[in-house]
């Protein structure tokens, strides 16, 4: 029961509280069970953002493993200045953005189709049946594909912010902490990124009264 409470606190991703501090202490003590819990709690969400950023399941899986290795290698230096979740996402986005930069440098000279993602690859989505009817399932799949395509057309920095804010639901200050930028920069980049996303997804946006 206490473990459930601790994990709930972890997933919330707020200030480092006593239970989270205990959990970090277990990680720093190299406790097997703590690392198993860490992977169990975070692997899916990290994979999700890695996939949205990289657009490929295999690359995302590789990135997830590397991210957890970096968490392990750096956990001794974690001082609790942010929540554990924010700290892990900071490592995750550092790794993912490095991969994107490496990929861009490697394939800089290749011709990229406008129908492809920025890395010259068509994003691959493996979706579970999201709706009760085949038509709804088809529409959802098409919309998911369009969103992923629109994301891959953004720069790495803009893509990070849109994913962190609109898909993962992080606050501006958390995004600033994760990406190492100011809240003002988050605000302006998010506005530009949303404008670009809106252009790409205009036919999928329902009329909504605000």
């Amino acid at each position, binding site marked *: 029961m206490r473990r459930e409470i601790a994990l709930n606190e972890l997933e919330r991703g707020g200030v480092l509280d006593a239970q989270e501090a205990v959990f970090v202490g277990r990680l720093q003590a190299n406790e097997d069970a703590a690392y198993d819990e860490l992977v169990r709690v975070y692997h899916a969400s990290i994979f999700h953002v890695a996939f949205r950023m990289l657009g490929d399941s295999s690359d995302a*899986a590789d990135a997830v493993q590397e991210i957890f290795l970096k968490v*392990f290698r750096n956990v001794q230096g974690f001082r609790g200045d942010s929540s554990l979740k924010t700290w892990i996402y900071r490592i995750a986005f550092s790794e993912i953005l490095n991969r994107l930069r490496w990929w861009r440098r490697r394939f800089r000279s290749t011709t990229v189709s406008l129908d492809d993602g920025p890395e010259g690859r068509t994003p691959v*989505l493996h*979706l579970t049946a999201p709706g009760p009817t085949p038509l709804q399932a088809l529409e959802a799949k098409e919309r998911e594909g369009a969103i992923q395509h629109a994301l891959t057309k953004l720069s790495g920095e803009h893509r990070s912010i849109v994913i962190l804010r*609109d*898909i993962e639901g992080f606050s501006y200050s958390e995004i600033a902490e994760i990406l190492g930028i100011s809240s003002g920069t988050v605000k302006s980049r998010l506005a530009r990124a*949303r*404008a670009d996303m809106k252009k790409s997804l205009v036919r999928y946006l329902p009329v909504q009264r*605000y």
Partner: protein
Amino acid sequence: MKVLSSISCDAALELISPFIDSMVSANQADALRAHLSACERCRRELQSLASLRTVMAGVEPVPVPEDLQLETRIKLSHARSHDGREWWKSRVDNILKPFAIPAVMGVVVTLLGFGILCGGLRRAVVADDLRPVATIYQQPKGTDNTMKRLGAVQPPLLDQAFSIQGEINNEGQMDGYSVISGTRSHGNDQWLQELVLFSQWRPATTYWGLPVRSRVILSFVTVRG
């Protein structure tokens, strides 16, 4: 486009994105609301951004590869175990290095001291005891000349086996002997004294090669026919 509010469309468009996240001040929100009430274009922009946020929030999580969790745990476990070994290795090295030179010197000094002590013991054995330490003892051997003489000299006829125990000093000479078995006679004694007088032995030695006093047992039999 008719604008009745105090902010322009450009300023309003900049505020719309943070406005839907509730990241504007109360004054900014009031100004934007006033502008939106009068500006159809900006109102449509707000609606489309709000729709975009709704669509993005409804994105389905991608299915996670089934073996990702297990593979990550295994990879992490390997890294942690390797790191643990490295940690222990460096710790042991750090602890042992300061002791390494003194320890080696200690072993060398101990061996030297032990060697010197053993040498002293061997000399003591030569002086006081006929029985050197078994593990560092080499048996005495007759020289070639002695062995030839033993083979060539015709002993007196012996009714039974004749055995003597001789004491060989550290110069390889037999100092004396005693009869262990067999019948003593004048002829036998004469033959034995001649044998002992001219015999030469390689004395027994210690491990360090020092000759020591030792004993040798010789048996003689007459082979008939």
